[in-house]
């Protein structure tokens, strides 16, 4: 089943919520993708998973992308039964980055979504355990955003501490024998 047929199939069921993008694919350099309206992504994914002619049983990856005013989540799906690939994209406004979770569709989405939350700050509603995955729990900000500023202090797991290379190291005398010489004889 090629992307046009998959798109028709989705269009029948979801109407204008799914839009096929072929602009780059027409130039022959990239894979076409289907854009899905924000709140419907979980239903579209479930549909892709359960319909017998789509059968996208393997969620290859869910990842985020900073696209300026919006944050985009990219879903790469693959079907072992049908040997076909599908790319879904879903944008949410940066100010309220909320998406429905797909953990109910594929258990594998658990860590994918945690990583997207960790790196981009997209909140997946209904996720059972939405914590940071790769960064420490007390990390400030979401570093894969293009406007992310590095923190002056590195947050490790136990709160802020200063750079050990910038600590003032007390100077010691060069020769330990000097210590002996400075002692008063007989003191």
């Amino acid at each position, binding site marked *: 089943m090629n992307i046009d047929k998959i798109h028709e199939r989705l269009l029948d069921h979801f109407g204008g919520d799914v839009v096929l993008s072929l602009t780059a694919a027409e130039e022959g350099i990239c894979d076409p993708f289907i854009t899905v309206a924000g709140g419907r992504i979980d239903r579209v994914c479930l549909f892709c998973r359960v319909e017998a002619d789509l059968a996208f049983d393997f969620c290859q990856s869910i*990842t985020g992308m900073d696209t300026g005013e919006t944050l985009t989540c990219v879903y*790469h799906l693959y079907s072992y039964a049908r040997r076909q690939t599908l790319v879904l994209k879903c944008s949410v406004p940066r100010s309220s980055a909320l998406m429905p979770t797909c953990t109910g569709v594929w258990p594998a989405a658990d860590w994918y979504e945690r990583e997207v939350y960790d790196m981009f700050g997209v909140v997946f509603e209904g996720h059972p355990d939405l914590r940071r995955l790769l960064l420490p729990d007390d990390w400030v900000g979401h570093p894969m955003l293009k406007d992310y500023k590095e923190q002056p202090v590195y947050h490790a797991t136990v709160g802020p501490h200063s750079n050990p290379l910038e600590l003032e190291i007390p100077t010691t005398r060069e020769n330990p024998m000097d210590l002996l010489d400075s002692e008063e004889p007989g003191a």
Partner: protein
Amino acid sequence: MNELIFSYDTGDEMVLNMGPHHPSTHGVLRFVIRTDGEIMRDATPVVGYLHRAIEKIAEGIPYESLMPYVDRIDYVSAMTADHCWALAVEKLLGHEVPERAEFLRVIAGELNRISSHAICIGVMAMDVGAITPFPYLLRERETINDLLEEICGNRLTYNYLRVGGVSHDLPPGWIERCQRFVDHFDNVLPELDRLITDNEIFIDRTANVCAVTPEEAVAYGLVGPNLRASGVDFDVRRDVAYSIYDQLEFDVAVGTGSMGSLGDCWDRFWLRCEEMKQSNRILKQCLAQLPQGPIYNKPKRIRPTGEAWARVESARGDMFCYVVGNGTPKPERVHFRTGSYNAMQIVKPKSRGVMVADLVALIASLDVIAPEIDR
């Protein structure tokens, strides 16, 4: 996480930390284990100790400069990881690779797969208590490292592939040396089977331990050897043919549950032994068919637009790379999804109700490499 570590009032339960520095965790990897005696309630993986922000670094450097970083995503099988990145960029550019370069990539990749599987099964045998196979397999890996060092100068992080080809041609006499290793390796595998695969104690220790059903394997996104051990017949090399794999003959081994249940630790172990045999078979064909010609078709300008994904069969399974270009020499976004990442997710559901010692067998049999998870 904190509530897990510090909740001591859990009745008979005990909360233990395994790792981050533990010899059987294969890298810096931590598990928070809730146990009742020797039986685990569950083991929660805590990852991120080896997070090196490779995806963020990728946004700040040119496409071709990322290759050494990609090596470090999977340092046990860096050739196949390199192949994934090279393939993604070539697909984005629509760039052709000379045929000899494709052969050299496959030769290097399959050699690397053998050495990676050798480490995996050697370490797994060691983790469950059999020390002897490990040095035997390390000996073979050493020969492979020597061979790979001759073609690219490095023994671990090769940086051998380029966008559009490979960096060096074979030195004189290399094909004979590689042929000698390939012929010798045919005898190693029966020896290994006698030593460990068919060993009764080893089978008792690993059969029926943490079996993963085919449905679970697909739902949790297990890939590569872990997926095939659960009985799903899928190999990227055969089913999403890339490079020259469609010209080569090889069988895809699939787990059968012959010693216990389908998808148990023994199946995963056995499957990697079978894959080494097939890799050896591929190597023989490649060495015999290696064509003459250029090895590097240097792209004139790497400033792609659009986006592309690439999949390769890495030693740890289906490695996925997603790259977005914005018309500048630096990528807009790069994402890698690796086999260990998915394998690690299944540890928590699979660890419920098993012995603490079996967790070690489970992690080892999944062939988890920590930097692949954290990137």
